[in-house]
């Protein structure tokens, strides 16, 4: 009987070699491990042998069944998983059902990216009205009447006392008039300039302004904050420079340039070969502004900054005509 056992084993393993699919595998199982298979037949025969023989044969028979079952299980797994892969039930290459691609307007998206950076370093977000008093828009911000500084911002007037705000800076007046120092906030929103509409200028655009007033706020810290912003937004390798400039509501005032992110500072069409891009204006809050809101310029100092969003969006996405931003052509919108 030992011969039969080893013969059964040989036959099983020989047959196992040629198994190609689950059908053949099932046939093999039935032939050997099934109710009337070779193994079952051997167990039937086993019942008839002597007790001495049983001791030896029992071990061998059990071993046979285990080995065959193990081989079968192994084969089953291999064959089933390969059959799963190779048996296509659907044409998976057919196109899927694609929902319409929703998009945010790039101006809003850019504004939010900027806001997020400042929020992380402790700036609150405050908004204000677009129809603003002449007082808040100009007078409080140290624009003297009949001063050429007013020419810097061509204004839409509602009447002699109200204007379409020309910058979001008046929101800083609103904050400081309702709160004692310290104040730290950014002020995003829409602003208007009475300028002819062409590829480079539009009668409205968006700004993010910022202000921080407290004891011991310095120009050095202004630089620190804006350098942090530039590195977060334009990448940590960005180079920068601060140039003296003029805004009525800050003194000293500066403009911040960064290395052109299109050409990396080598000079290109976008940066007009200079290697630099002007990205924002800033400065120390003018003592006249602090006085206007009732702060004591001998006790507190502050810094302020502001940047135009469209310009940043346009530079970033290589858009050469600002009007594209407000034409809302769906083919344009869906590109972002």
């Amino acid at each position: 009987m030992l011969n039969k056992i080893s013969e059964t084993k040989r036959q099983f393993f020989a047959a196992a070699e040629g198994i190609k699919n689950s059908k053949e595998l099932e046939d093999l199982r039935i032939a050997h491990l099934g109710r009337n298979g070779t193994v079952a037949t051997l167990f039937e025969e086993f019942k008839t042998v002597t007790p001495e023989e049983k001791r030896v044969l029992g071990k061998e028979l059990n071993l046979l069944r285990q080995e065959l079952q193990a081989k079968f299980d192994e084969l089953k797994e291999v064959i089933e998983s390969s059959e799963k892969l190779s048996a296509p039930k659907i044409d998976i290459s057919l196109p899927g059902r694609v929902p319409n691609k929703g998009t945010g307007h790039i101006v809003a998206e850019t504004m939010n990216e900027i806001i997020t950076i400042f929020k992380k370093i402790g700036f609150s977000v405050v908004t204000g009205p677009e129809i603003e008093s002449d007082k808040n828009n100009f007078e409080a911000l140290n624009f003297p009447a009949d001063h050429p500084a007013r020419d810097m911002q061509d204004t839409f007037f509602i009447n002699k006392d109200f204007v379409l705000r020309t910058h979001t800076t008046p929101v800083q007046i609103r904050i400081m008039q309702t709160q004692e120092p310290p104040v730290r906030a950014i002020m995003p929103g829409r602003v208007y300039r009475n300028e002819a509409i062409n590829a480079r200028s539009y009668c409205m655009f968006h700004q993010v302004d910022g202000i921080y007033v407290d004891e011991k706020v310095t120009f050095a810290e202004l630089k620190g904050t804006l350098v942090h912003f530039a590195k977060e937004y334009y990448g940590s390798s960005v180079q920068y420079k601060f140039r003296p400039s003029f805004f009525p509501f800050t003194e000293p005032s500066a403009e911040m340039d960064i290395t052109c992110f299109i050409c990396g500072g080598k000079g290109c069409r976008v940066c007009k070969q200079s290697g630099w891009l002007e990205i924002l204006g800033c400065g120390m809050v003018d003592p006249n502004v602090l006085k206007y809101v009732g702060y004591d310029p001998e006790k507190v100092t502050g810094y302020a900054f502001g940047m135009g969003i469209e310009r940043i969006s346009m530079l970033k996405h290589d858009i050469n005509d600002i009007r594209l931003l407000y034409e809302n052509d769906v083919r344009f919108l869906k590109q972002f």
Partner: protein
Amino acid sequence: MKIVLSWIKEFVDIEDISVEKIAHELTMAGLEVESITNYGEMFDKFITAEVIEKIKHPNADKLSVCKVNTGSEVLQIVCGAPNVAAGQIIPLATEGARIPNADFVIKTTKLRGELSQGMICSESELGLSNDHSGIMVLSPETKIGIPLAEALGQNDVVFEIGITPNRPDALSHQGVSRDLAAIFNRPMKTKNLSPERIAKRIEEVAKIAIEDKVNCPRYSAVVVTDCKVGDSPDWMKNRLRMAGMRSINNIVDITNYVMLETGQPLHAFDLNNLAKSSIIVKKANDGTKFKTLDSVERNLSGSMLMICDGEKEVAIAGIMGGENSEVSSTTTNILIESAYFDPGCVRRSARALGLSTEASYRFERGTDFEGTMYAALLAADLMQKYANGKILSGELDIRAESLTKKEVTLRFNQIERILGYSVPQDKVVSILRNLQLGVKEVTDKIVVMTIPGFRPDIEREIDIVEEVARIHGYDNIPTVHRVSSPLVSAVDDLEMVNSMRRVLIGMGFNEIMNNSLQPAEITAVTGVPVPVMNPLNAEMSVMRSSLIQGGLATVKNNLNAGEKDMRLFEYGDIFIKKGEAINSFEDFEEVTVVTMLITGKAATKTWNEEERDYDFYDLKGYLKSLLESYLVTANLGHVYKTESDPVFEYSIEVFSGENKIGVIGKINDSFSSLFDIEQAVFCAELFVNCIERKKDKLKKYNPLLKYPKIVRDFAFIFDSEVRFDVISDFIRKNSSPLLKKISLFDLYENEKAIGAGKRSLAFTLEFYDLNRTLTEDEVEKEFSAIIQKITKKFDAVLRGN
């Protein structure tokens, strides 16, 4: 402002410093160099040459073939200009020269078969003027074979500097030199003026009276007689041209030259045309007409300051002279006016007249009230040299006592307080001295200055801090980072808008942004608009009272571009006028709204999907989904409107509790037709500020259902007028709390099958209890009770049983 390098070198010795370094340092000191024109480099490979022969081109009517002598060789040039002639000295672009105005490089080539070894240039091609009528002809004395830049006296560099409104002092070569002297710590050179005078005294030929000393606090005048009006010397013409001014004649050129050098605008009157040889400065008579130098008749108003002679107006103070006293070719005697006018006064007049000149530009920014006499004498000196003039002895100079220099004190510690780092005191003092800021007292704590007249912008300590910062260099200020926590506790309105944006974008909407300035008529439909006093045009004359008009215009633009299917949204402020006039913030309303807009196809035909048009229910579903993200839904209410309104054919007003938070509907045909839109547009507008935030009201957790739901369906035939919400409300009111959900799974209309004016509505009712398993019996009982009630109430017929 165009600044000529050789000119500033007259005032400060910067011979050893490169052009690039000068430009960089000026920029870093606040005088931003916007461009550099280096004529020497620009005219590289341009030389002077003489035309020695001109013959007609054998193969072209309009061309000629010239032989030109460059001094070292004879070249053949094909030329198209009609005025080229043998004997002329001309500017020649030789092989490799780059034409400034055309950006191409000269190469030896054949033109219609004839060799051409260069190009004879026009002034326009050289970028010197707009004259392209013919080639530029140089003066016959010009040497041949020398570099063109040298021949033109333009072997020079010009910086174009953007001057901020606070720096009138830098609107002159002297002023820019002063900054350079401070930047490079070098002495400023001054000119010694001691022109020869004749015995005759100015008082004998002219007198001056100022009636308005507030607006004209200083008036200085010098008289030069026996002048010969003619051409200016070449060097002066060249400098004026490089600085962007046209040469007129020697007298006018000299006044312009002095203005560009000192910043003081001058006016030269023909003294013989001044009635009674007198100058009177006074306000104009309202309504007077006056013809300025540019031959334009101007209407004067009583607030404008005028220069008058004994009889009439002769100039608008600080802005422009009159034709009646203009220097002409026959003028001999000249009164040079050098005055200080009140900046505000000049600015108001210039704006009222719509006239801005080089003079008014400087006066309205503030000129140097101390420098008037120097400028007049400088001009007189030049007239003596270049117009053969004789300078009378003495000068007329009226000065109001109100003109005093301001005293400013700087506390050294303020520099560190504002800038965040300290600058050594001796460095500070040296910067202030180099800027000629009138340092008169220095202690270990303070420095006191008497600010000279050329710096009207400096009035306060902070102005001095700025001067120190910009000259010492912003680069020297360290960058300091401080970690911070928020200090302002205002509600962030944008947070809400942004979360709504995210949901809408996720639902496949495209965000748009429209101009807030809209046409008046269509804006008035949605609210009384706020008009703009000085609009750009009629299409942008009022502030929008809704975002719907902009949205519809967007739809139209896209339809024109062939894009027919859209889901758009926009957020932004709308403005509605409340009062008669806008005197305060109470007289108008400015609120933030979000508008959603769908039109065209919801789905296009694909292999696995049928084409379908958007309908009202698509938008209603989007809106529900959006609102459920923000609102406690139990508070939502509706008012259905089917009667027409100016915008909607039918609509629903949406409420959250008592607050109307928005409206949704189908745009009616007459409103769409204003935008030329023919397809159906569905639109919703939500008032962001009225929406209750989910995080404002905490939602409590509901335990999850552990017991089975029992679901029953029925369908009834109703009269078509019976509205769905009436039926569903009825079912809800007439059921026990076990009924948790009603949904409509079918709507069927068919005249033949169920009769005219009827429709079948099929409902699914869902019953469950959170605490127990319901029995079939109790649900069955409830269900049949509802069936009976519906049948009775609506006279409806139960189907299918």
